[in-house]
């Protein structure tokens, strides 16, 4: 089985994040950039499937030059190789345009299974898996908290507001995973050393048969017009609980008409 894992580099959600003032895109130059957290769960899931069923795991990233750091980091967990689609024309691409590039790169890989995170921490869009599946005409099993593979049959369990659902499909298919699915491994020293020598293929848009005008600002279907910092919340009254902290709390709630 050939598994492609989608890995996105995002600005660290624990640090200050900004949009650029010149073109309203995510400021990646000044941010500390990391692997999108959910994607580490996707990598772990791919590796444990490989351990159980054999086959090959390929990391796929669409992103700027500096995403190479994240790709090497991903490889240090254990995947066999990586593909990095990088092209200046990609800057400013919306989700619809990005899905076109990811779908083309996946098609080239002829994967049996695509695994990705359920959402990215920068956009929190949660749409990429279904956009890609729609383009490829394959099944999308999204938001998995559990995945089992038997031959060519995939079964996931996914949480819903009411409880959970069990959904099945046949390969080729795409599965997006939630952070409840496993515990990602830490790269070992050996893994880190090995990652430096693993094959990393760099592709341009031309290699995928996509014209520059189909992506970037020109090919995008939506655009940010303006952005501003939200005024930070002001700290209000802070009291010491003393003996009547609970009563004072209720007094406050009553003054605000919540009680």
């Amino acid at each position, binding site marked *: 089985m050939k598994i492609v894992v989608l890995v996105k580099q995002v600005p660290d959600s624990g640090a200050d*994040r900004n*949009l650029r003032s010149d073109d309203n895109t995510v400021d990646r130059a000044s941010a500390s950039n990391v692997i999108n957290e959910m994607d580490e769960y996707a990598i772990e899931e791919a590796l444990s499937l490989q351990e159980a069923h054999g086959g090959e795991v390929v990391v796929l990233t669409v992103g700027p030059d500096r995403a190479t750091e994240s790709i090497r980091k991903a490889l240090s967990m254990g995947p066999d190789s990586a593909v990095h689609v990088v092209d200046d024309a990609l800057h400013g691409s919306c989700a*619809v345009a990005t899905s076109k590039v990811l779908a083309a790169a996946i098609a080239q890989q002829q994967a049996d299974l695509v695994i990705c995170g359920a959402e990215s921490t920068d956009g929190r869009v949660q749409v990429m898996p279904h956009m890609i599946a729609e383009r490829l005409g394959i099944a999308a099993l999204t938001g998995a908290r559990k995945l089992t593979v038997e031959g060519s049959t995939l079964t996931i369990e996914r949480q819903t507001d009411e409880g959970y659902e069990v959904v099945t499909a046949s390969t080729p298919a795409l599965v997006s995973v939630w952070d409840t699915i496993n515990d990602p491994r830490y790269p070992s020293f050996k893994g880190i050393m090995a990652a430096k020598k693993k094959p990393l293929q760099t592709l341009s848009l031309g290699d995928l048969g996509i014209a520059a005008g189909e992506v970037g600002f020109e090919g*995008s279907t939506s655009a940010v*017009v303006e952005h501003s910092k939200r005024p*930070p919340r002001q700290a*209000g009254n*802070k009291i010491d609980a003393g003996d009547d902290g609970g009563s004072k709390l209720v007094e406050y709630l009553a003054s605000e008409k919540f009680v």
Partner: protein
Amino acid sequence: MAEVLVVVEASQGAVKKVTLEMLTLARTLGDVSAVVLGGSAAAVADKLGEFGASKIYAAESEDLDGYLVAGKATVLASLIQRVSPAAVLVASSQEGKEIAGRVAVKLDNGLLTDVVALDAEGVATQVVFAGSTIVKSKVSKGLPIVTVRPNSLTPTPSPATPSVEQVEVALTDKDKLAKVVERKVEAKGARPELAEASIVVSGGRGVGSADNFKLVEELADLLGAAVGASRAAVDSGFYPHQFQVGQTGKTVSPQLYVALGISGAIQHRAGMQTSKTIVAVNKDPEAPIFELADFGVVGDLFKVVPQAAEEIRKRK
């Protein structure tokens, strides 16, 4: 007036609050038509009319319920092509986003997610990066297809008598690739749903154990609130994952958010920062949660919370 489509989000035959919010928003943009994908339109028609739907498109088919979203997207995309609406509003839920994402690809149309406001010019407002940044964006190709975040506005009724039009459900094999083999409903009791609740009471690692979460639940029930939890509380097994608030959990925007034993890490704030009023109980006076709390109590939650519960009971 131009037609605006609202994709109905319902659960077990009842319309979700976000649907009423979308109907209210849609009335500011044009003539409102509700779209029912799967389930039963008859069950929800009255409610949709009450909040201003003048028309209901009903796409009812077992196939829509038996497979994941692809078929719903197919039906919605062909409806959009047929009626050329001025805008399409979908709920910002997992399913809503998935349907909208597929429709955007099918129609090569722009998509804006997690929108909290949309004006008549099609400019949408979004709050990103843990609530720190406000973004105004626009669809530049096609019509505005937006997913609307729950609790972004207050729904108001505006009675209408909707006409119902049955929509043909013509699916292909590609729409039936992901088959739902089981749907398990877990008892959720009388508490409101987390994303929709007007009051949320959340517990963190400071609550200490699954058993102690009864304290959080007790306060929540006295306030008619939903219960939430921090990731540390969920990871420690104190409370189930579907109640996690924050970046990798639910985003809530209630009138009142009560944080008990939660430090206020940036990823937790991402999910509750836009709450109207925030109240915190934490024994550490330096906890970052106090930076955003309108009212903070520095103290032991095991003393403060039972006393507060007692006081509310007295007042009732």
